[in-house]
């Protein structure tokens, strides 16, 4: 028997104060099993003890929101009797330690969150951030991590049979020791068939289904709640191993059992495994759960109660069925070849009671594990800045310099084609993908509901590092802009908040600023946040990642047709820049600083400094409305929003369709040419429009007081930009080759 010493308490990641709180609440010293149970539920990962106070500032209500935060996933009404469940979650720490399995189980976990509510998963997206592939010291390791993470996502999603339809992949030095893997999933179901993770009906059976329990993943949640150090390698055994085939069977069996109407409540065993599912189901149901571990299917011999309760073995679910019909549950799971065992019953006393062969090994009130978990108001100062406010004055550039910069930018790590990644994902299975990966927003049709759903993930760590509040707002603005390009109305959002150590006041300040910025923007754009995840302690040897809030927004399109493409389709079409050349830049004294946040600064100048681009949210929203109406009336032939790389990169990318249609552009600007071409002012969207539709486009833009100047015309084969009299030419084929081949070359090292 291990005695609980100060050392044991510290090993469990608990402070002395937290331990005293435990003793006070239960009126005695906890057993080791109880200490394990409490410590894992009180970990940052499960309890949100540092973030909860601030997450309350986020908007969560909306007309279409059926279920908000607090459940396994948020749910929105998509019309015609159907609903969509969606959420994003991080699996950062496991994918750094064991990239393939870490990423695979990240996808597995988020898929379970969706189908545990009754929805069949129809789409996955991933937001990935790594250290640079050519980093002199960490390059080899980073390439290994990218290969592993992408392989793991592909392995899990492809076998499970869910299309991976989009996402992002960004490289910054700040992710060298701590990459980010944020996985998003969305599923569909009839809106009157939502299942919740609540245990109801005293005496009802508590049934364990799915994979057997092993020793993998013990203390995974605690690992995700600590910084990395030299010994993190030794945590590899903490990473779970995924089996997508088993999960596919679990999905089919769960949906079949749900259809039979014999399941009352269901919750997946994710972080903190059996512990979390039993106490949360009891907590939500206002009941208790008593289990005996001797019934838990086990993969290994001699597991202790402590290990069984804390295991994070994958592909397991806990469900509560009506007493008397449990045989029907067992029959469905048997059909799919899965274990289904009654391991306990629902009680009326609000306790989580765990026995092992009858002997009581843990008895803890649910409330202590959930609502009464510690809540901290961590001190915050001013946000930590890892980069200077002022940078070099960018020299005036010639037309040739600009042409060279454009080629360099399209082949740079963040802007180049991610085809080598997304072709490893089955992005078409289920035959719904009407806009495949590589566009501004991904779109799937929903055959059951006769609508389409557009979705995008956005985050910009560089912007957020320079100003957490503004950076967070810019991410929401860009995400909504992405949806507007396909004519979708944004409905609701999910967020994944990746930050460093919240016990450092400067990091806590980043977190608070970013959350408040997200809240402001989500209110403004009408996208309530229905759930998500917070990942803190993303630090290695004391160095924090860029603060990186990632936002995923789902939008609704009222038809199932293929949306307007992003690429130019025909020569001789007018090119319209909705939003104007550089909105909000004239008169901005901080322009040079703001330019320091651009990809041009990062890639061409080789430095990052200053402030993010200025955002006027009212203006931005009117741009979205303008574009949405134009698209819905079928006026443009192509639509692409401007973001990283600015106007020049946006124009080049419009040319990367199969026909390689370029453009001839004529501009005059009061700003230096590199600013006009590469500054990343938001609120801008490029359209190509046939002559007969120009008038209608202008009328819509004018009605919303948004400038929509014609800046040129599409043409075959080359991009030609005349700016203040100087002209540069670039072959679209050349740019395309550079853009398309860059990632493969970089991955080879």
């Amino acid at each position, binding site marked *: 028997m291990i005695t609980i010493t100060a050392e044991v308490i510290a090993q469990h990641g608990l402070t002395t104060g937290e331990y005293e709180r435990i003793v006070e609440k239960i009126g005695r010293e906890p057993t080791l099993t109880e200490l394990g149970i409490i410590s894992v539920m009180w970990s940052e990962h499960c309890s949100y003890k540092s973030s909860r106070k601030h997450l309350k500032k986020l908007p969560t209500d909306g007309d279409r929101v059926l279920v908000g935060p607090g459940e396994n996933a948020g749910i929105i009404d998509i019309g015609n009797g159907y609903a969509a469940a969606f959420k994003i979650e991080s699996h950062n720490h496991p994918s750094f330690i064991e990239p393939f399995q870490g990423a695979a189980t990240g996808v597995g976990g988020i898929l379970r969150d969706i189908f545990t509510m009754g929805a069949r998963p129809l789409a996955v997206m991933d937001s990935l951030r790594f250290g640079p592939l050519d980093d002199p010291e960490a390059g080899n390791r980073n390439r290994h991590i990218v290969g592993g993470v992408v392989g793991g996502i592909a392995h899990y999603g492809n076998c499970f049979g869910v299309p991976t339809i989009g996402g992002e992949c960004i490289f910054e030095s700040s992710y060298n020791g701590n990459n980010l893997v944020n996985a998003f999933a969305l599923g569909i179901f009839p809106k009157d068939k939502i299942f919740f993770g609540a245990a109801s009906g005293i005496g009802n059976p508590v049934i364990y289904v799915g994979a057997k329990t092993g020793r993998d993943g013990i203390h995974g949640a605690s690992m995700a709640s600590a910084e990395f150090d030299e010994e993190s390698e030794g945590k590899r055994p903490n990473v779970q191993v995924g089996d997508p*085939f088993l999960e*596919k*069977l679990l999905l089919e069996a769960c949906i079949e059992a749900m259809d039979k109407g014999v399941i009352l409540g269901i919750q997946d065993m994710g972080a903190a495994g059996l512990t979390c599912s039993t106490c949360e189901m009891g907590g939500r149901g206002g009941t208790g759960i008593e289990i005996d571990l001797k019934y838990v299917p086990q993969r290994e011999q001699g597991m202790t109660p402590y290990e069984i309760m804390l295991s994070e073995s994958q592909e397991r679910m806990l469900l509560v069925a009506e007493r008397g019909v449990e045989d029907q549950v067992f029959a469905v799971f048997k059909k799919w070849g899965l274990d289904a065992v009654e391991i306990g019953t629902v009680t009326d006393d609000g306790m989580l009671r765990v026995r092992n062969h009858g002997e009581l090994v843990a008895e803890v009130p649910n409330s202590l594990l959930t609502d009464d978990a510690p809540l901290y108001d961590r001190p915050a100062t001013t946000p930590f800045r890892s980069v200077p406010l002022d940078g070099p004055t960018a020299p005036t550039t010639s037309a040739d310099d600009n042409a060279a910069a454009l080629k360099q930018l399209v082949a740079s790590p963040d802007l180049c084609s991610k085809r080598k990644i997304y072709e490893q*994902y089955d992005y078409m299975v289920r*035959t719904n993908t*009407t806009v495949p990966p590589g566009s501004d927003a991904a779109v799937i049709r929903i055959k059951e509901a006769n609508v389409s759903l557009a979705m995008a993930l956005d985050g910009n760590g560089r912007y957020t590092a320079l100003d957490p509040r503004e950076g967070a707002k810019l991410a929401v603005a860009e995400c909504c802009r992405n949806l507007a390009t396909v004519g979708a109305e944004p409905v609701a959002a999910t967020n994944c908040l990746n930050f460093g150590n919240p016990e450092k006041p400067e990091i806590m300040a980043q977190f608070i600023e970013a959350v408040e910025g997200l809240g402001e923007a989500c209110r403004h754009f009408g996208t309530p946040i229905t759930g998500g995840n917070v990942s803190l302690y993303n630090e290695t040897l004391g160095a924090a990642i860029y603060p990186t809030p990632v936002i995923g927004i789902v939008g609704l399109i009222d038809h199932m047709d*293929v949306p307007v493409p992003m690429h130019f389709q025909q020569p001789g079409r007018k090119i319209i820049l909705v939003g104007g050349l550089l909105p909000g830049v004239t008169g901005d004294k901080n322009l040079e600083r703001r330019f320091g946040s651009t990809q041009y600064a990062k890639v061409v100048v080789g430095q990052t400094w200053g402030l993010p681009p200025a955002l006027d949210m009212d203006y931005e929203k009117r741009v979205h409305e303008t574009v949405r109406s134009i698209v819905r009336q079928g006026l443009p032939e192509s639509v692409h929003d401007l973001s990283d790389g600015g106007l020049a990169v946006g124009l080049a990318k419009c040319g990367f369709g199969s026909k390689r249609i370029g453009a001839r552009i004529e501009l005059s600007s009061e700003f230096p040419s590199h600013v006009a071409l590469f500054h990343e002012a938001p609120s801008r969207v490029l359209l190509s429009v046939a002559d007969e539709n120009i008038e209608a486009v202008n009328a819509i833009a004018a009605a919303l007081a948004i400038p929509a100047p014609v800046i040129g015309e599409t043409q075959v084969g080359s991009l030609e930009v005349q700016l203040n009299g100087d002209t540069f030419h670039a072959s679209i084929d050349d740019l395309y080759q550079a853009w398309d081949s860059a990632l493969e070359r970089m991955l080879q090292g």
Partner: protein
Amino acid sequence: MALVDFPSFRFGVVLFPGSNCDHDALYALRENLGQSAEFIWHESEDLSGFDAILLPGGFSYGDYLRAGAIARFSPVLSAVKRFAESGGLVVGICNGFQILVETGLLPGALVRNRGLHFVCRTVNLRVESTESPFTQDCTAGQVLAVPIAHGEGCYYADEETLSVLERDNRVLFRYVDEHGKATPEANPNGSVSNIAGICNEGRNVLGMMPHPERAADPVMGSTDGRLVFQSMISTLVRG
């Protein structure tokens, strides 16, 4: 929506644990081709009443050991064998092709892609022979745009088998470029002789790695895959 009205036949789509293109095949057959299509559970041994059998893509039994290696032992496969031996039309797509090869209904083997990665993209297929129930509605040399999505789709067969396949015009589809040339660059997985689909000696069993069911609906970008099913329907009409 079906663009053309076809006579309706009864297609059986076999459902293995781990199949994941089962719904897609059912949808294409019903909605895009106006056929009557139903699932057949892998434990079923009765295929009576079906006009044609489709083995869909996915990861049957998790593809543990080797793709398709476990599915060959399932009860439904002995029924499929009997169905094929009596001349019934059987088509195996992706994992279905792997299963047909494992059961010996088709020759050769499907191994890890050259490059070792899973590949999902739309490729060009050239119709090599219209003398089959699966290609008779195509024109010889016609180039079809059809998606692939597999990790183990590199077709391999020994010299002798290959020469028999070629001699008897049993290679029905080859990977080609947009001009219809079977170049190494157009070969997405390293298959020998760019082979994408073959039929058996009796020409009533087809295995192909590309997914015609993903190219049956206009919103998916191509409807070329319909020609495979249309050809089967034409064959069934003739009886």
